[in-house]
């Protein structure tokens, strides 16, 4: 027998011993309770295992760690889960040597069943990391975030580090679904719920909506939940379960399960089963973080936006000021801003007053992302109800013009085709400000528009874009244009020449200046100046 297989055998023996040991603990679970677990357990898995799956259910607590009474319940529940649904086989253990590479490799995922203050030495750290990053899964139940105190990478992997449980086992808390349509959330049928359980906090920045996809979290709009346990403003976002991609591997964490009766709560069991299958890789789901928090601050923001909705000029703008304060505090945090953006877009789609919508567009102008595009693009084709209110297209452009992204350019270009008059002029202006090179073709044909404002705007936009195509378009337009439009074309053409000169394309710039020297004042003066500047640069 090789040395290696000897180790494995010893390990397996150890597993056996500890299984016996845990069996003793499991005696704590009464037959009646076992029956409840068995009954509450889903009959089958929602994903078909790609191959027989093996889950290491690990339940050791460090010397200083708190040992939860629910550990045997979860050991049993997970065993039953695997057996009843056929999704996996559970191996329960509290032997650290299970994390050695040679032992670990038989498993498809590790489940930390309420382990606390676990300590990994260097070889075991390496082993676990290469296990997960190499494409396996890790699952955390309730207290599983209370580990790896001096191991930041593992804390990062878990998506948070336990910082307290202001909500205790006797408290009933409200939970809302942040991703109601996520496949792993099917168990909750799109509805938030209440549950009596202890809730673990993992403070930011380790816990972050920018780093993991939070599936559900505490509902701070529920007064009781909000008032329990010395709620602090910093605690506004308390994730309940989340997923995350880590290297090639996957993490699923669920903070529920302190109370024994959670192990016979059917939706929670279904959710955990789905999460475990995700950790195996059997459930291919989206793990892209969504920087949208819908928690305490949302309540505050949404309360304020409710007031903003009816704002009109001449009224107190105090709610507006408060919204501005919250927005300013969120600068630099995509998660916060994303949440605010979502609420603001809802207001834009509602029957809010034009003054309120204008205010919101001013804010989105600074914080908006491509998520705004569809709502704002719809406003580009709306008409104001009266002359005594801002034009929806002007408001939408106020936001769109400063929002980066190709999707914005595209929406503007599309709107060019469906709008007329001043609305169209505004869109042309915005495309020019954004220097959207892909709009040159459309702008070029607008030079011939019968409306002088439209033609003039198109010319100016081309001058602002000033790329080779725009330059060519203006060169051609110059010979056909007359009167005021000709002056505008020459001005835009001059800008193109200046651009070329700045890029060091002296010959091309000079050709344009020479061409424009033939124009009347003030174009010829500007052309001469351009030529002199060009020579000055050359001399240098």
């Amino acid at each position: 027998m090789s040395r290696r297989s000897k180790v494995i055998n010893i390990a397996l023996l150890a597993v056996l011993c500890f299984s016996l040991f845990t069996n003793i603990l499991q005696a704590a679970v009464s037959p009646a309770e076992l029956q409840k677990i068995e009954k509450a357990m889903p009959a089958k898995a929602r994903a078909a295992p790609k191959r027989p799956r093996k889950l290491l259910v690990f339940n050791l607590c460090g010397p200083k760690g708190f040992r939860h009474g629910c550990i045997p319940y979860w050991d049993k529940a997970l065993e039953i889960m695997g057996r009843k649904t056929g999704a996996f086989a559970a191996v329960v253990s509290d032997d650290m040597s299970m994390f050695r590479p040679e032992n670990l490799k038989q498993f498809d995922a590790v489940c930390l069943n309420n382990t606390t203050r676990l300590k990994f030495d260097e070889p075991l750290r390496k082993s676990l990391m290469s296990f997960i990053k190499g494409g396996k899964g890790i699952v955390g139940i309730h207290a599983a975030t209370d580990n790896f105190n001096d191991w930041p990478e593992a804390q990062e992997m878990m998506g948070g580090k336990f910082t307290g449980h202001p909500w205790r086992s006797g408290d009933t808390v409200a939970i809302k679904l942040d991703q109601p349509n996520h496949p792993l959330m099917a168990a909750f049928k799109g509805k938030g719920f209440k549950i009596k359980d202890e809730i673990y906090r993992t403070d930011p920045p380790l816990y972050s909506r920018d780093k993991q996809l939070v599936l559900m979290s505490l509902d701070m709009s529920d007064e009781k939940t909000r008032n329990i346990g010395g709620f602090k403003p910093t605690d506004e976002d308390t994730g309940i379960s989340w997923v995350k991609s880590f290297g090639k591997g996957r993490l699923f964490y669920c903070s529920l399960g302190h109370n024994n009766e959670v192990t016979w709560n059917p939706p929670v069991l279904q959710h955990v089963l789905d999460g475990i299958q995700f950790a195996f890789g059997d459930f291919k789901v989206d793990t892209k973080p969504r920087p949208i928090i819908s928690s305490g601050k949302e309540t505050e923001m949404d309360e304020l936006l409710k007031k903003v909705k009816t704002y009109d000029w001449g009224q107190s703008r105090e709610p507006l000021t408060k919204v501005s304060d919250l927005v300013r505090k969120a600068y630099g945090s995509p998660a916060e801003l994303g949440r605010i953006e979502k609420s603001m877009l809802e207001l834009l789609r509602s029957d809010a007053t034009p003054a309120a919508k204008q205010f919101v567009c001013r804010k989105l102008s600074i914080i908006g992302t491509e998520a705004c595009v569809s709502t704002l693009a719809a406003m580009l084709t709306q008409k104001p109800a009266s002359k005594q209110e801002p034009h929806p297209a002007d408001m939408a452009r106020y936001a769109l013009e400063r929002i980066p992204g190709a999707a914005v350019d595209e929406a503007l270009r599309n709107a060019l085709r469906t709008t007329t008059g001043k609305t169209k002029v505004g869109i042309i202006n915005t495309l020019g400000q954004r220097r959207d090179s892909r709009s040159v073709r459309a702008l070029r044909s607008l030079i011939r528009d019968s409306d002088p404002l439209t033609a003039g705007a198109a010319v100016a936009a081309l001058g602002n874009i000033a790329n080779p195509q725009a330059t060519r378009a203006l060169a051609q337009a110059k010979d056909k244009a007359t009167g005021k439009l000709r002056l505008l074309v020459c001005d835009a053409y001059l800008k193109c020449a200046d651009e070329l000169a700045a890029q060091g394309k002296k010959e091309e710039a000079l050709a344009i200046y020479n061409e424009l020297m033939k124009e009347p004042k003030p174009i010829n003066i500007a052309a001469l100046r351009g030529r002199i500047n060009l020579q000055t640069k050359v001399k240098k």
Partner: protein
Amino acid sequence: MAKKTISRRQFLKGATVAAAGVAGFPYFVPSSVLGRAGNVAASNRIVMGCIGVGSQGGGNMRGFLGKKEVQVVAVCDVDKGHRDGAKKTVDDRYKNNDCKAYLDFRELLERKDIDALSMALPDHWHSIIYVAGARAGKDIYGEKPLARTIHGGRAICDAVHRYGRVWQTGSWQRSQRNFHHACELVRNGRIGKVHKVEVGLPTGGSTDNKPVQPVPEGLDWDFWLGPAPWVAYRGVCHWNWRWMMDYSGGQLTDWAGHHIDIAHWGLGLDYTGPVEIEGKGVYPRDGIYDAPTAYKFTCKYDNGLTMIVANDRQQPKGMGTIWYGEKGWVYVKRGKLEADPKSILDERIGPSEIKLYESRDHQRNFLDCVKSRKLTITPVEVAHRSISVGLLGEIAMLTEKKLRWDPEKEIFLNSDEANRMLSRPMRSPWHL
């Protein structure tokens, strides 16, 4: 969104910066070419149009009416009251009925007989109307602050340079003896190397909350708003637009073109800007006015210099500009010049020392330059750099962040929000 290359600006800017090195150095294009023959009539008369003839613009116009070589032929304002009053003032001066009054500045700009413009409008109009003026080939006396946004200011500089126009900013303190003397002392090292400068500007007043009301007869409210977002009329328009962020930035931007401008002049920083800005403003939480009433921000320059700009109540010396050097300080404000040690005030600037551009009459300086085609005492790029400090402070206070700024490329290096505030989308049909 394609980022605008800075290079085009650099191209336009380069020549002027070089020219500004020596005051009185001839402008690049020989004046004969730049239309001396056409722009200034053979009789040496400067034909002028005045756009924006309310309080400040009316005052500027009256000043120009007092200069013999000026002939004001047109006035323009979106308020009939201003328009008619200005026309009457002009006609009374010339004892005829020839002055033409316009509502739309574009019609005035089409007049080929006008050489120069005097312009004084709410800040939010500056970029559009100054660019249009330069594009029409007119020389411009334009009120400070140069622009409402940094991009707007850059567009004005580009247009003025592109069309080779003579530009004078209404930062008239440069044409005052005490300010000029203070700056020459500092520039010539009389207080040693300067490490700190404090700039005190006025504190804002109380707010107001007027109801929506009918637009007064004769005021074209929609035109007055121009590129700014449409809002209902609430009885605040002339003068008091200063306290609303859509149109201006409060006392801070109203006065940045004065005491910050002077601070830059004394330091020789006319063609650059700070590299780091951080500060805090106090904003009215309700009412129609929203510009900061109290404000304080710190700018760090590349050479290690610190500039602290604040409302006067937060400055030890109150209003004005004070430079602190290794050997003492120089303090200047309207009607006052102090120094420590006092003795330096009596010192003469020697023949081999730096002589700053000298003008004792701001409007006269403009008219002289229209004729000579030379650079004025407050050229457009200088005005842009002065108001940029105010606008950068405004953005730093709005974002409540320590911002890092590249004065060459004119972008923030560490804030997306701040970069978005460098320009403002305009209401249709207005654009640059």
